[in-house]
């Protein structure tokens, strides 16, 4: 039962960290040049990801993880 909790945690980590990588290192750096051909208001999109978007996404990712883990703690009766 406990093992299941840990596996589920690792599963969340893999997904969230993949998004973390794609939005910062991907959209903000490696693909920024390509994305700069598109615009978000006055922002070239790659530039926006590098200086604004990635940071918003970081914050959201943490709160999603908190939500998922609080639910998981409860389900496995591990809530303190």
């Amino acid at each position, binding site marked *: 039962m406990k093992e299941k909790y840990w596996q589920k945690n690792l599963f969340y980590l893999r997904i969230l960290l993949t998004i*973390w990588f794609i939005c910062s290192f991907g959209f903000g750096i490696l693909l920024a040049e390509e994305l700069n051909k598109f615009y978000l208001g006055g922002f070239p999109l790659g530039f926006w990801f590098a*200086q604004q978007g990635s940071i*918003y996404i970081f914050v959201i990712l*943490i709160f999603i993880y908190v939500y998922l883990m609080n639910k998981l703690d409860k389900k496995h009766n*591990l809530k303190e």
Partner: protein
Amino acid sequence: MDAQFWTYFLVGVTFSLYIGIAIWSRAQSTKEFYVASGGIHPVLNGMATAADWMSAASFISMAGIISFLGYGGSQYLMGWTGGYVLLALCLAPYLRKFGKFTVPDFIGERYYSKNARTIALICAIFVSFTYVVGQMKGVGVAFSRFLEIPYDLGVIIGIGIVFFYAVLGGMKGITYTQVAQYCVLIFAFTVPAIFISLQATGNPIPQIGFGSKTMDGVYLLEKLNQLSVDLGFDKYTDINQNTLINVFFITAALMFGTAGLPHVIVRFFTVPKVRDARISAGWALLFISFLYTTAPAVAAFAKVNLINTVSNAKYSEVPKWFKNWENTGLLQFDDKNSDGIIQYVADEQINELTIDRDIMVLANPEIANLPAWVIGLIVAGGLAAALSTAAGLLLVISTSISHDLLKKNINPNISEKGELWAARISIAVAVVAAGLAGLNPPGFVAEVVALAFGLAASSFFPAIILGIFDKRMNKEGALSGMLVGVVFTTIYIFYFKPQLGGPGLPQNYLFGISPEGIGTIGMIINFIVSLIVSRLTKPTPENIKELVESIRYPK
């Protein structure tokens, strides 16, 4: 009432506030002194972490650096925020469950080795000390530029304040002061930003104004690109493909370094529960993001304002602030062609204006004609940023000495009272030492900060991650990984930093990676060496496997 009055007034009010908090929150036990009894509310801990994290460099220098690098400045924005995702997901909750006081504590127990603890504590002290000297310098600079107090006296006042609340209150005093300092610094940073955003675009939210149209109907960034090209610079939003790999590695080194910095990690020991540690990292990053998403907007607005004001202006007709900042040496005008007009262009031969990057934040209110009290606010904010970071770092140094070195390595029988005294004395010594170093900062302070992040990324980060996620990781693996990672990173940085006497030239960089980004490679080497060595040596003892098992579950 002039700027001078407001500066004295606001600095005086905020400093009294910090002292008041210190007296109210005196620490009575080592647990209070080291981790504030683990009783800090997660939202407050988030604020304290944010103040702890955002240093004089974030507050004063970062927007200026972005202003001059354009897209290239993104490495600091992403690098100094992205590490919190790693902290929240991969480190903070488990370290909180482990439930001790310091990072060397974790390394020492998880790897059942005094040597591991010793290496960790040396790294922790070195990283924190180099960092704290930079903060002291920031305090001295803020005082000397705005209050016409000599630099040395400024540093001494700074030491005095930190001495008072850190020695008295320990982590408890530091935490509550940092909460107040966060409020001061974020208010001080955003108020001028809102004003300039309104002036330039009519939108009060800088993050949106940044991507809006200016009064003449052109997008701000488009205008900035055009101005830059006209003066011979690269477009502000353009990406330089030649340095992209370096941007990648620097961003990574800053992120992994953030997640490995002891003064940040230790903040998550101060909350009551594992779930609090997770959400506290979320609050911390939210509070940090207010400044980090405003800074690039300030950078762009200030650059446009500056170019519009000075470029091709008659020197005899420049505004008063120009002359003021010339006196401080942050602006230098050299009329090369003697036409009395300021030529500000990319071409070094023709360019007549040298601008210190810090001016983009410091002089921003004056450039934008904001009221005098806003200038005072900037000074109080800069001091809050420097002092809060300094205090957090000093606490790490003192706990490393009194707890890890004295109690765990030298004299385990020391009494609770004796240890508390030792903690107070070592923080006092650390404050004074940092102050002395701040009075005579070795010229290489700024350079050494690269080393702090490099070391944190190449030593602590892999050792902690493997300690949590890999039960098979043993003492031999972690020790050899840390040693190889640290030695590689240190040698590379010294070799390629001319300011540190290194003979290396940029064209010989490994894969084109500059010293600021090499911590990423050091970290990868650490991971590889640890994994290989651990598989070839004795398995982890059973009791350690149980320890790892226990930190993975909140209850």
